[in-house]
């Protein structure tokens, strides 16, 4: 049996806070989860939920208070683990005196590639993230979105089996976001494992095989996006256009929301035929009828709203 791509076992992280009287604040609380090979796994949560802390623990940038983790069967303390992973930090920043090409070439050296192979991989990565034209420009002249692309390029440069991306869509314009989504889908097609944190829920719903939701350092739920939220029907959504000169029946007119020339109305499933009949009577043009199910976004907001205080780390005791 092969080892899971990522195995997190009771990871906990406490940070000391305060200057004179040190207290410990828990930013991650006994996180345990497993990601299988080839999965695209979304790590969701509001700001301060512990997503970046988890990724930093996995990368060995900070050390756990307790618990451990393994990537492809290797402990996160094992430097050899880093040969098999790629990592995009949150809001990445790189040596600004280097060009994109020089930076990638520098990072490629850590993987022991020959000069010819380095050149090949660097060119390929730059092309993959659409930076071929800017390859020789110093990074200090790059925009935030371009730096994000460089960050993705360095994460996939050595074709790692597991890729960790911390907020990969952050700072990108719609075109950039679409390109990153395509890269993630391509990585999945290649059988690689992608673990990415985000608070853009539509991206998670669109890309992820499974998601985990983190809140105040605790795992709230894990599963396929459809499993996390209830699949129970919440109602039906009707999109229609009113015929010119024909007024909508009073009840419908009050409940419908108008955008441009179109109306949208949400009705209970049991009322759908009655409402459609009313719309037919006033000669409205039905554009679509679709079921309304709770989204990951609804789940996410319920979770955050259920807490009386914002999502910050929890104080766990004096030192």
């Amino acid at each position: 049996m092969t080892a899971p791509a990522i195995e997190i076992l009771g990871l906990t992280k406490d940070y000391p806070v305060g200057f004179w009287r040190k207290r410990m604040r828990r930013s991650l609380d006994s996180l345990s989860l497993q990601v299988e090979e080839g999965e695209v796994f979304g790590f969701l949560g509001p700001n301060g939920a512990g997503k970046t802390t988890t990724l930093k623990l996995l990368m060995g940038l900070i050390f756990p208070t307790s618990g451990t983790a393994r990537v492809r069967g290797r402990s996160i303390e094992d430097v050899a683990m880093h040969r098999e992973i790629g990592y995009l930090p949150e809001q990445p920043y790189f040596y600004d005196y280097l060009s994109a090409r020089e930076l990638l070439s520098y990072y490629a050296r850590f993987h022991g590639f020959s000069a010819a192979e380095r050149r090949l991989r660097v060119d390929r990565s730059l092309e993959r993230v659409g930076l071929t034209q800017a390859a020789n420009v110093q990074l200090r002249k790059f925009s935030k979105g371009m730096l994000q692309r460089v960050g993705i390029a360095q994460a996939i440069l050595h074709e790692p089996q597991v890729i960790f991306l911390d907020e990969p869509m952050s700072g990108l314009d719609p075109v950039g976001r679409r390109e990153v989504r395509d890269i993630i889908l391509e990585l999945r097609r290649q059988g690689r494992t992608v673990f990415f944190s985000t608070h853009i829920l539509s991206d998670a719903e669109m890309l992820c095989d499974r998601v985990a939701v983190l809140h105040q350092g605790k795992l709230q739920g894990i599963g396929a996006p459809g499993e996390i939220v209830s699949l129970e029907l919440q109602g039906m959504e009707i999109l229609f256009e009113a015929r010119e000169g024909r007024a909508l029946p009073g009840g419908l007119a009050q409940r419908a929301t108008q955008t441009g020339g179109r109306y949208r109305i949400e009705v209970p499933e049991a009322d759908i035929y009655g409402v459609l009949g009313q719309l037919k009577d006033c000669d409205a043009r039905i554009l679509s009828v679709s079921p309304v199910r709770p989204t990951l976004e609804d789940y996410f907001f319920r979770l955050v709203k259920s807490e009386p205080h914002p999502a910050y780390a929890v104080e766990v005791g004096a030192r």
Partner: protein
Amino acid sequence: MSALTAMPAVVAVNTFREAVRDRVLYNLIFFAFLMMGAAILVGQISIGIERLVIINLGLSAISAFGLVMAIFIGVGLVSKEIEKRTLYSLLAKPIRRWEFIAGKFGGLLLTLIVNTSVMTLGVLLALVYVGHPYNPYAKEVVIAVYFILLSLALVTALALFFSCFSSPMLSTLFTLGIYITGVFSEDIRGFGEVTNNKLLLAVTRVIYYMIPNFHNFNAIAIASHGQAIPFRQVWQNSLYALLYVVLILFAASAVFSRRNLK
């Protein structure tokens, strides 16, 4: 390249490149003007002591420029990478933290070696200019420069050590404090010995043995007077510096390996 030095070498080359791109080596231009000016001026005002003045001035400038570089670049070697978060993507690569520390040290040392070598060439050219095509002092000058480099290696290691856990400003103060104490460590021990206070004697002895003795690396006066520097002193100083550098880098790696990069 062995597996032990491969990763540090990659970091070292990039550190050197950073120094060059940050125009650190521009100080050489200032040094070149200083040596040209001194050579022209000395030729006119000093009678028979041109060599002494050029060597004294040149080696003192090499030492001072090197010290400023070692401290001010050294204290930012690690802290700047943490502050700018460039370390995050780097440490996700298959590199150990001690290899990063060794590489950073190697990179700055390489910068100092290049800088010092060019300056030494400048001093030797100035000596030629003041009328000594064959200079019997050249060997002593080179050894004195080698000693300066050893002391700069020590200062770099100290600055790097403090950079692993402290802010650049505090690291500068700590490094400079140790350097100055090290320059006067003989005097500090002598002071303890002349007092009859046992506590003071113990404290000054601890300082003397703990703090690297930078006075040992100063051979500028010997070189400028054309006196021979015994070979014994060369290997003793080499061994002394090597031992301290290894110890300090070991301590820096130990501290940095436990540091959380928040």
